């Protein structure tokens, strides 16, 4: 079997779905954060695959922007998580429920 565009896109969609349900289901903030990164990387894989098989470079170039954006997001996000851990001594989502109706 040769690996073609469909296989790459299927893997990309599967990774995206795993990340998405991980964000919804997991309780630990850090794991949720990893799932978010997984979703972004699924997008990167899709961009590269489309770019490679359809010709044209814009998809490949876009990947550089997504990687940069993801790095910026991690830098700020981890800072917030650490600051919150210092205040509350937990990063479990069910315990972080001070804001409620």
């Amino acid at each position, binding site marked *: 079997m040769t690996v073609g565009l469909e296989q790459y896109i299927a893997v990309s969609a599967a990774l995206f779905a795993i990340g998405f349900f991980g964000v919804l289901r997991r309780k630990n903030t850090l794991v949720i954060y990893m799932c978010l990164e997984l979703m972004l990387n*699924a997008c990167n894989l899709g961009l590269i*695959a489309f770019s490679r098989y359809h010709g*044209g470079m814009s998809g490949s170039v876009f990947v550089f*922007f997504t990687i940069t954006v993801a790095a*910026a997001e991690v830098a700020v996000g981890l800072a917030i998580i650490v600051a*919150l851990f210092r205040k509350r001594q937990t990063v479990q989502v069910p315990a972080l429920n001070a804001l409620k*109706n």
Partner: protein
Amino acid sequence: MPTDTLNSLGEIAATNTWGAIYPEMILGCLALLLLALEVILPKFAHGAIPRIAILGQVLLLGYIVIFDVSGGSSRVAFGGMVELSATTQALRIFFLLASIFVSYLAMVSFENKSLARIEYFAITLVVTGALSIMAMSNHFVMLFVALETATVGFYVLVSYFRQNPLSLEAGLKYLIMGALSSAILLFGIVLLYGAASNPALAGSSLDSMNFQNLRVFLEANPTDTLAIIGMLLVISGVAFKIGAFPFQIWIPDVYQGAPVPTTAFLAVSSKAAGFAVLLTLVKTFAPLSNVLIPVLSGIAALTILFGNFAALTQRNLKRVIGLSGVSHAGFLLIGVIAAQSVPEATNWVLFYLFAYLLGSMAVFAVFAHLPKAWDSDLDLDDLGDLAKRNGFLGIALAIGIGSLAGIPPLAGFIGKFLIFVAAFKAELFTLLGVGIVGVVVSIYYYFGVIKAAFFEVWRFTDENEESGTPSALPGATLTALGKLTIVVAIAGSVVLGFFQGPLGSWLSGQ
């Protein structure tokens, strides 16, 4: 190296007209200047830096309004990355105005708090520039990068009160929700790119993330499944930003926990940028409108109903305003849908946004002047007897809330009226009915806020005196600058309500 490639690169380079984005570049430079000043100036002079930020923005706004209000002719720049038009120029003015108000609110909120301050103003400037570019974007790469610049800035602004666990928790919630929506948006872009770059299909293009090229492709293939899924994902991602149902879950929590200036910034600028993008995207996705319009209509109706009914039971002030903002997003969505068949409705959406800006800023300015250690705890009781204890703030609150509620003759009324006219002209009768129900329901909770400020006796004097902390009067920190800012906001709401004369031709779409 083929000379063709070099020539086309040369053509693209020739469109890099930096003058086209001078306001955004000035904002960026001003942000850097603030950070430099923090290092250069001695400690006692740091109080001047926020004033420099506000002054710089006022000068820029004045220059644009006086010399460049129409923004020149519609044109694309930077190889099709951004598209400038009268609409984007109006939005540019909108974001600048909002950012001036936000900077002022930040000055008030940060008094008596031991926090790093200058960064807040610098980040506000950068985010404003990013939102403005987002409104101009004409290419998915530009859109995504501008959106993320703004969103990452907002993560910091939401969790800025880092001694307050509520602010941090709101920051975390916004972080997860914002990153999730960005990822969904990005996956939508990937699918659209994949569909529109397929050389086997008619109308495909090598640069298929450009909105014009994408539209050409969609006109040739209006039933492409991949493109339709991609479009729905992109619209979901944008719906997160504007807080439309069912993606509004983050709004009450984040609005409550965030500092008042950030809440105002999120409610006004971030939402407006989302709508600017939505207006562009609805034009781009016009060939798919048999799928898009029913989806957007359903979202609009549910957003209006959810926002208004959820706000009924709230007591926390910022949650009330946040949920009312959800219903405003629903009204604006009606305008966006109507703009498909009624072209001048685009300008009516902008008018609504300006009315919403002025009303919200008056209300948030009052919130910023209420005495409370952390503004996330403000609730209806804190307004108790505000009108007697500080008449000026009482009037400002009444006019702001009245404009948000759409009480004639304030600007908010004209805004809602124009949206309903647009819905009527576009024959969206169901949405029109839902909108009117929403307005009626909203009067109840808006009146609840007014009632708390005007007719309820303040109950907490004794309690505070017993615990030994004499309670500060609301508006004790009100300065001349503050009075001027609030007067501008309420005067704008009143004047725009009575008199739209100079905007007449603009509003009728000429």
